[in-house]
C-alpha cells in the first residue's frame, strides 16, 4: 500500500467501486471511529500523492503562460518568476519519475508542495512589488489551497477554489485584459482539477479501505491459521525432540542452533549453555577433532567413536547427521547416542565369545552341538579330529549318519533321547563311526540344550578312549600274567612250607620250625595280597561278574564266623554273632568275602579279650550287617578314606596284623556292586561299627560284569562322582 503507487494522479477506474465502497461502511466488525480515522489517513496519503504533481504541473503551466504574457507585453518583471517556474518543474519531474515513491513519499510530497507554495508566494510577492496589479488573486488562491490542504477539508477547499475562480471571472469581467483572462483560466482549471482530484481521491480512499478490509480479513484468517499450524508443528517438534532418547543437535556451520535435553545430557552441560556455542563446546574426540569434523570425516554416516566431553567424561558416541535447510540456510541435524554401555557390553560379549571359542577349540574333548532334529550345528576341532573329518564338514550332518557305526539310530539311542526328552546321558565305551570304517571307542555325555524349559537341541561331548582301552587291555594282560606267574611259585612255596610247618615231613629243630613258620605265614600273606590286588583290579575293571542267588543271611554269617573263628581264638578275641534268617538276593561268595574281610579287620584291631560282634537284621528293603569291635576307633576324617585302596591308618598295622590295605576297598566294591553301601561309625572309646547294607532284592538288573557298552546310561550319567571301582555301580 505504498502511497505513491498511483503517483500519476490518475487512478484506474474500476467498475464495482461504488458497491465496493459501500459495503465496508455499512457493516463489518471494525469500529466506526477506527474506520474513519483509518479512512482519513488513507485519503490524506492519496491526496498528497495526487495533488503534488497536479499542483506542480499547474504551477509550471501557469508561470509559463504568465512569463509569455508579460514578455509579449514587454514587461520586465517576468524574470522574477523564473525561480517559481524552476522549483515547480523540479518537483513535478521528481514525482513523475517516481523517485519519491517510497514509504515516506507522502511526507516528501508535502515538503515539495510546501516548497512550491513558497516559491509561488515569493513570485507573487515580487510581482506585486514590481507591478502592483491584479496578482493578489494568485496569492489568495494559493493561500486558500494551502489552508484547504492543511485542514484537509476538501469541500471547503473546493468551495474556496470556486470562490477564487469566480473572483477571477469577476475581475476580468470588470477589467478585461489578456493577463486577467489567463489568471481566470488558470484559476478555473485549477479549481476543476482540484475538484476532480478530490473526488477521485475520495473514491480511491473508499476503495482502498474496502481492499484493506477484505485483505485484512483474509490476511487475518490466513495468518491465524498459519500461526496455529506453526505453533502446533513447533509443539510437536518440541515434544519429539524433548522426549527423544537420542541427542539431537541442529548445527549451522560450526554453531549449535539447538540441542535437545537428551543431547545436553550426553555432553554433560545444560542446553542453554550450548545453544549458540561452537561444536567445540561439546568436547573432542580422542584425536582432537570436534564432533562436526569427525562427522565430516566419516561422510556423515553412522560413526562410532570415543568422545571426551568438556566435563572430562569419556563416552562412546554413535553419531550420524543429515543436511537440511533451516530458516533458508544450510544446516546440519546431528543425532548422537551414548553407546558407552552398549559398547561395554559388546566388548564383554566379544571377550566371552573369544574365551568360549578358545575353550572350545583348545579342549581335547570333541564337542558337537545338535539341533532339535539331532543334526550337527556346531563341531569343535577336536570333534573333527576324533571323527576323522574336518570340523566344518560335520555341519548339518545327522547324528545317526555321523556317529552310529551302522549309520542308523539304535532303538534306545541316548542322543536321540536327549534331543527328544531332554534327558542327560553319560555313556561309557560307545563306538562312533569314522569314515575309515573302523569305529572309534568313545565315552560321551549327551546333555540337552534348554531354552525356557524347551529342548532345542543337545550337546554331545565325547572323548577318544582308544588309548585308555589299550592301557586297560595291557593291564588286564598284566594282571592275568601276574596272577599266574606269581601264584604258581607261591603255590609251590606255600605247599612246601605248609607241609614242613605242619610237621608232616618229620621233626625239625625248634628254631628251624620257627623260621619255617614265619616263612609260611608270610607266604600266606603274600598270597592274600596278590589275591586282594587281583580282586580290587577286577572290581575296578568291572570284570567281577556277580552271580546273584537267594542267600540266607544267617547261613552266610555263620560261614564267615566259622572262617574267622580260628583267627579270633588265636588273638583271644571273643567273636559273637546275632543274625536273623533273612533271604536276600546276592552273590554269596562275595558277601562272604565282605563279611570275612570285616571280621578279620575287626579282630585285628581288637584289644586282647575284646569282643567282635556280627549282627544281621532287616533294615527296610535292605539287609544290614554290622561288625562291631572295641578297637581304637577311627578318626572322623579317616572314616571315608579307609575304604580307599592301600589305605592304612598306620602302616605298621599292615606288618603287625598282616593286612593288605585292600580289604575295605574290596568290601566297598562288593557293596557297590550289589547296589548297597558300606560305611563306618566310630567312637574312640567304644570302637568302630562297620555297616554293610545290601538291597534285599539284589543288585540292579544290569550286570556290572558285562562289557561296559551295555551300561545303563541313566545310572552312569547321574553319578557325578563315578570314582568308585565298579563301572556303573556308583552310589
Amino acid at each position: 500500500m505504498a502511497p505513491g503507487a498511483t503517483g500519476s494522479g490518475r487512478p484506474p477506474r474500476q467498475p464495482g467501486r461504488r458497491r465496493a465502497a459501500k459495503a465496508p461502511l455499512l457493516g463489518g466488525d471494525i469500529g466506526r471511529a477506527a474506520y474513519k480515522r483509518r479512512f482519513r489517513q488513507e485519503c490524506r496519503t492519496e491526496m498528497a500523492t495526487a495533488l503534488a504533481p497536479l499542483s506542480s504541473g499547474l504551477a509550471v503551466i501557469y508561470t509559463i503562460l504568465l512569463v509569455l504574457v508579460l514578455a509579449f507585453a514587454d514587461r520586465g518583471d517576468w524574470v522574477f518568476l523564473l525561480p517559481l517556474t524552476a522549483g515547480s518543474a523540479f518537483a513535478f519531474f521528481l514525482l513523475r519519475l517516481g523517485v519519491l515513491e517510497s514509504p515516506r513519499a507522502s511526507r516528501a510530497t508535502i515538503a515539495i508542495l510546501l516548497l512550491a507554495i513558497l516559491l509561488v508566494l515569493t513570485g507573487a510577492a515580487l510581482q506585486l512589488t514590481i507591478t502592483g496589479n491584479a496578482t493578489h488573486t494568485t496569492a489568495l488562491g494559493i493561500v486558500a489551497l494551502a489552508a484547504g490542504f492543511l485542514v484537509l477539508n476538501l469541500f471547503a477547499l473546493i468551495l474556496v477554489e470556486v470562490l477564487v475562480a469566480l473572483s477571477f471571472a469577476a475581475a476580468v469581467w470588470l477589467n478585461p485584459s489578456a493577463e486577467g483572462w489567463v489568471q481566470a483560466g488558470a484559476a478555473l482549471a485549477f479549481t476543476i482539477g482540484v475538484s476532480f482530484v478530490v473526488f477521485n481521491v475520495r473514491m480511491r480512499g473508499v476503495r482502498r479501505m474496502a481492499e484493506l478490509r477484505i485483505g485484512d480479513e483474509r490476511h487475518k484468517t490466513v495468518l491465524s491459521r498459519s500461526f496455529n499450524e506453526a505453533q502446533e508443528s513447533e509443539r510437536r517438534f518440541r515434544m519429539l525432540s524433548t522426549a527423544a532418547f537420542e541427542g539431537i543437535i541442529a548445527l549451522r556451520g560450526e554453531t549449535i542452533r539447538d540441542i535437545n535435553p537428551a543431547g545436553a545430557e550426553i555432553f554433560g552441560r545444560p542446553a542453554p549453555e550450548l545453544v549458540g556455542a561452537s561444536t567445540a563446546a561439546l568436547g573432542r574426540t580422542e584425536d582432537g577433532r570436534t564432533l562436526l569434523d569427525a562427522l565430516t570425516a566419516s561422510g556423515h554416516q553412522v560413526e562410532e567413536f570415543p568422545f571426551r566431553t568438556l566435563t572430562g567424561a569419556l563416552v562412546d558416541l554413535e553419531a550420524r547427521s543429515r543436511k537440511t535447510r533451516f530458516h533458508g540456510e544450510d544446516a546440519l541435524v546431528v543425532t548422537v547416542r551414548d553407546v558407552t554401555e552398549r559398547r561395554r557390553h559388546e566388548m564383554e560379549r566379544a571377550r566371552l565369545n573369544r574365551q568360549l571359542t578358545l575353550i572350545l577349540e583348545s579342549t581335547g574333548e570333541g564337542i558337537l552341538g545338535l539341533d532339535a532334529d539331532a543334526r550337527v550345528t556346531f563341531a569343535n576341532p577336536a570333534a573333527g579330529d576324533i571323527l576323522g573329518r574336518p570340523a566344518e564338514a560335520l555341519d548339518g550332518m545327522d547324528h545317526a549318519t555321523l556317529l552310529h557305526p551302522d549309520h542308523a539310530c539304535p532303538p534306545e539311542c541316548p542322543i536321540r533321547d536327549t534331543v527328544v526328552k531332554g534327558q542327560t546321558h553319560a555313556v561309557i565305551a560307545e563306538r562312533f563311526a569314522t569314515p575309515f570304517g573302523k569305529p572309534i571307542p568313545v565315552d560321551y555325555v549327551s546333555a540337552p540344550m534348554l531354552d525356557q524349559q524347551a529342548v532345542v537341541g543337545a550337546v554331545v561331548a565325547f572323548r577318544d578312549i582308544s588309548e585308555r582301552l589299550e592301557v586297560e587291555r595291557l593291564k588286564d594282560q598284566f594282571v592275568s600274567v601276574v596272577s599266574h606267574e606269581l601264584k604258581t611259585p607261591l603255590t609251590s612255596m606255600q605247599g612246601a612250607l605248609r607241609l614242613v610247618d605242619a610237621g608232616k615231613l618229620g621233626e625239625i629243630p625248634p628254631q628251624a620250625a620257627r623260621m619255617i613258620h614265619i616263612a609260611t605265614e608270610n607266604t600266606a600273606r603274600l598270597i592274600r595280597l596278590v589275591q586282594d590286588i587281583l580282586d580290587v583290579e577286577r572290581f575296578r575293571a568291572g570284570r567281577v561278574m556277580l552271580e546273584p542267588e537267594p542267600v540266607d543271611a544267617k547261613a552266610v554269617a555263620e560261614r564267615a564266623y566259622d572262617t574267622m573263628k580260628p583267627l579270633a581264638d588265636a588273638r583271644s578275641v571273643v567273636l559273637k554273632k546275632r543274625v536273623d534268617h533273612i533271604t536276600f538276593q546276592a552273590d554269596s561268595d562275595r558277601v562272604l568275602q565282605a563279611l570275612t574281610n570285616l571280621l578279620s579287620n575287626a579282630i585285628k584291631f581288637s584289644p586282647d579279650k575284646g569282643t567282635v560282634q556280627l549282627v544281621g537284621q532287616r533294615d527296610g528293603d535292605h539287609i544290614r550287617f554290622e561288625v562291631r569291635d572295641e578297637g581304637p576307633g577311627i578318626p572322623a576324617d579317616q572314616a571315608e578314606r579307609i575304604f580307599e585302596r592301600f589305605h592304612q591308618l598306620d602302616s605298621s598295622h599292615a606288618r603287625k596284623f598282616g593286612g593288605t590295605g585292600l580289604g575295605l576297598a574290596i568290601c566297598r566294591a562288593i557293596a557297590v556292586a550289589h547296589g548297597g553301601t558300606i560305611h563306618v561309625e566310630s567312637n574312640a572309646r567304644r570302637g568302630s561299627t562297620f555297616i554293610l547294607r545290601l538291597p534285599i532284592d539284589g543288585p540292579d538288573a544290569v550286570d556290572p560284569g558285562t562289557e561296559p557298552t551295555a551300561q545303563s546310561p541313566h545310572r552312569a550319567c547321574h553319578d557325578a562322582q563315578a570314582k568308585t571301582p565298579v563301572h556303573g555301580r556308583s552310589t
Partner: protein
Amino acid sequence: MRHVLIIDDDEDIREVAQLSLEISGRFQVTSAADGQSGIEAAARDRPDVILLDYMMPEMDGPATLGAMRQRAETRDVPILILTARTATGLEAEVRGLGAQGLVEKPFDPLTLADLIDQRMGWT
C-alpha cells in the same frame, strides 16, 4: 587207594601236590609235565581223577581236556582243573568242557586231598 594223575608243567607244583596227596595216605599219585604226555599217561593208567593245569605252554588245559574227551580211553576219566586264574565264570567254563570242577591255586597242601574228595563227591 585212588589214583591221581597230575598234569602240570611246573615241576615244583607237581612235587608239592604229589607229596600232599601221598601224605594223606588215600592217594596214589603219578604225574606228567605236559598235555600230550598226560594224555598218554591217562590212556595207559586210567587214573581215578586227573588234576589238569589250566595254563600250560603248547597244549594247555582246555586243549588237553578236549583231546582226552575225544579219546575213548580217556573219555570218562574225571578231571579237575588246577588253575591260578580266578576269573568269574571259569568253573562254568571248564564244566562246559567236560571237567568235574576246579581246584584253585594256591591250594593248601594239608587239605588238598579233602578238597579232591569233596569235589569228586567221594566223602
